[in-house]
């Protein structure tokens, strides 16, 4: 029997679900949030004095349990996909707050060109510059249209940074390549450290434009426009994969979710695993989910919001037969289209023999960056690839298990290794590159025909591999990071033209940024949702998150996800009032 109907049901309560719940409940709507993980034990106090790297970083306390639910991977349409049981390449969160609890806090805005990737590329380089099989698209929304929502997310989360472009006025010391902001960041940038200053100085000497990376780790106490006050970072170095005991890292559980709960209109249900939307092909009627006892429940609602991780949003649509399934052979259909990842690699490393740094201190997003080789900020003529990425040198802390680094040639174990980690633990520096991941016709998400989760539902299947465009981009990036490392001038250097392995390997950490599968756009034949993240095929269903990206940019996605969540919330309120298509 169905439960009592509510105004809105949200699947997944992380950044997206939390933002939308806060906005809708404060407008008076009755909202139910379905969270597959636990809802207790996710507050700052639960992480106090808990710098347990084994528990959180190795045994994956805050991540999806791949024994119960995972994904399968194949590199092309001819391969048989296999289930992945080892987390590595990406780290989907579970429990209240989702990955917003264990993220590092890098909070970027995408470039204006990123939202018009196809048009901008053709305008500057011609259609021939887009390789065969590449399927980049425009987003159906422009940077200028999204700017107010970026601003809202940044002020809610208290993002620390230095603007490089306010209303078209370029400001040295900030990112002069960024799109115009309406105003300065809400919080001053995190200070430079001895390590990040080395990168800053080297980049300046080479004629590049270094700036402090935008961070959700507060350098000072901050009270946001919602009246939420958070304290300053202690630079403990336990951000990524951990909850923040100080509340200095912006997190849905310390910002938007409490606002929603305070209204008395937000009912949170933990251990509730949604798997399908009951629908008639035009309207979503209710959400079907397994409760904590494994019983199937049905929650009817006027409006349904899919706010889970990329894979679960797409899987729920496919399980529901809602929207036309993508066909990678013909390139038609939309649900599952344009799955992308993030192109890492091309970094350079350095070690000093007579200089030590306080690497054990840091915060997740404490960094210096350059944007000179991102997006289309440089002339690609003759390079043989399109796209780019951000180059950063960070100080996120150096934990005792995963942050031991030694120069090339060091024995991987034994006495010599122990001597080397003692010698170099405090003396290492890295310069990293995080690149775009363009869409391809063959890359997509669908339901695996062979493997199922612990509830008996099909796993999501990923079809993805590295392509020549990204391989050439990474080779190019490696020459740039090496150039900077040489200017930093440590005693030992490792780097050079970057390379990607023969195949994409999910077992090793690279980045945790999956995108696409329920992409946004202006054309219903090539996108799942419109610019308000409202489904073309079911106007009362909204699908929100990185699944909306038509391709991934050379930045971390959370800033853009947050902006899309605020835009979706605005659209949902409009829809609740007037109904119909929002575009």
């Amino acid at each position, binding site marked *: 029997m169905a439960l009592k109907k509510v105004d809105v049901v949200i699947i997944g309560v992380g950044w997206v679900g939390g933002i939308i719940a806060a906005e809708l409940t404060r407008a008076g709507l009755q909202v139910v949030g379905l969270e597959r993980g636990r809802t207790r034990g996710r507050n700052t106090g639960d992480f106090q004095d808990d710098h347990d790297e084994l528990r959180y970083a190795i045994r994956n306390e805050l991540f999806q349990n791949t024994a119960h639910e995972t994904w399968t991977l194949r*590199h*092309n*349409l*001819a391969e048989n996909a296999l289930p992945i049981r080892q987390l590595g390449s990406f*780290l989907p969160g579970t429990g209240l707050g989702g*990955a917003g609890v*264990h*993220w*590092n806090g*890098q909070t970027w805005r995408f470039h204006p060109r990123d939202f018009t990737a196809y048009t901008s590329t053709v305008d500057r380089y011609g259609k021939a510059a887009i390789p*065969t*099989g590449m399927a980049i698209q425009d987003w159906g929304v422009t940077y200028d249209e999204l700017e107010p929502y970026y601003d809202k997310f940044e002020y809610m989360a208290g993002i620390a940074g230095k603007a490089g472009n306010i209303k078209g006025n370029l400001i040295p010391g900030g990112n002069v390549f960024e799109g115009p902001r309406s105003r300065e960041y809400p919080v001053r940038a995190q200070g430079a450290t001895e390590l990040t200053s080395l990168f800053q100085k080297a980049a300046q000497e080479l004629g590049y434009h270094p700036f402090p990376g935008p961070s959700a780790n507060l350098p000072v106490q901050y009270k946001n426009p919602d009246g939420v006050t958070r304290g300053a970072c202690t630079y403990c170095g336990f951000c*990524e*994969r951990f909850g923040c005991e100080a509340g200095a890292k912006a997190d849905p559980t310390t910002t938007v979710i409490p606002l929603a709960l305070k209204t008395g209109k937000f009912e949170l249900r933990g251990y509730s695993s949604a798997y399908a939307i009951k629908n008639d092909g035009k309207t979503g009627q209710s959400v079907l989910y397994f409760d904590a006892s494994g019983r199937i429940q049905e929650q009817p609602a006027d409006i349904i919001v899919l706010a889970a991780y990329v894979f679960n949003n797409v899987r729920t649509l496919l399980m529901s037969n809602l929207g036309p399934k993508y*066909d*990678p*052979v013909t390139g038609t259909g939309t649900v599952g289209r344009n799955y992308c990842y993030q192109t*890492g*690699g091309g*970094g350079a*490393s350095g070690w000093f023999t007579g200089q030590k740094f306080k690497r054990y201190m840091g915060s*997740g*997003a404490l960094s210096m960056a350059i944007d000179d080789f991102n997006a289309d900020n440089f002339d690609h003529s003759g390079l*043989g690839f399109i796209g780019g990425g951000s180059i*950063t040198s*960070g100080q*996120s802390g150096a934990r005792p298990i*995963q942050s031991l*680094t030694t120069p090339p040639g060091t024995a991987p174990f034994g006495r010599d290794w122990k001597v080397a980690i003692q010698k170099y633990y405090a003396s*290492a520096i*890295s310069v*990293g590159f*995080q690149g775009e991941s363009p869409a*391809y*016709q*063959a890359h997509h998400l669908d339901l695996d025909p062979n493997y199922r989760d612990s509830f008996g539902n099909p796993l999501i299947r990923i079809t993805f*591999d590295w392509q*020549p465009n990204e*391989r*050439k981009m*990474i*080779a190019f990036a490696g020459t740039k990071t090496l150039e900077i490392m040489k200017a930093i001038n440590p005693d030992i250097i490792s780097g050079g*033209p*970057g*390379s*990607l*392995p*023969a*195949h994409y*390997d999910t077992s*090793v*950490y*690279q*980045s*945790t*940024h999956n995108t696409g599968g329920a992409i946004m756009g202006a054309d219903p034949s090539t996108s799942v949702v419109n610019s308000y993240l409202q489904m073309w095929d079911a106007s009362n269903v909204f699908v929100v998150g990185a699944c909306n990206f038509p391709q991934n940019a050379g930045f*971390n996605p959370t800033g853009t996800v947050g902006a899309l969540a605020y835009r979706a919330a605005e659209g949902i309120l409009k829809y609740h009032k007037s109904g119909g298509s929002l575009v």
Partner: protein
Amino acid sequence: MSEDEEAPVLPPDDLEHYSGEWVAMRDGRVVAHDPDPEKLRAHPDVRETDDVFPVGEPPSGFYLINV
């Protein structure tokens, strides 16, 4: 023909054979390979329009950690 029987976009040549080398690719096929990129570009089978890039070893080691 079902999608699982057809691979219209991805290259048939498996790059695992070339880990640690540079390859030149044309229309999804490896036309030449060499550990030295300059020697590869000078290879008589390699055209200026070919995709030339290094193939890495499986990932390992020191990563910039950022989520």
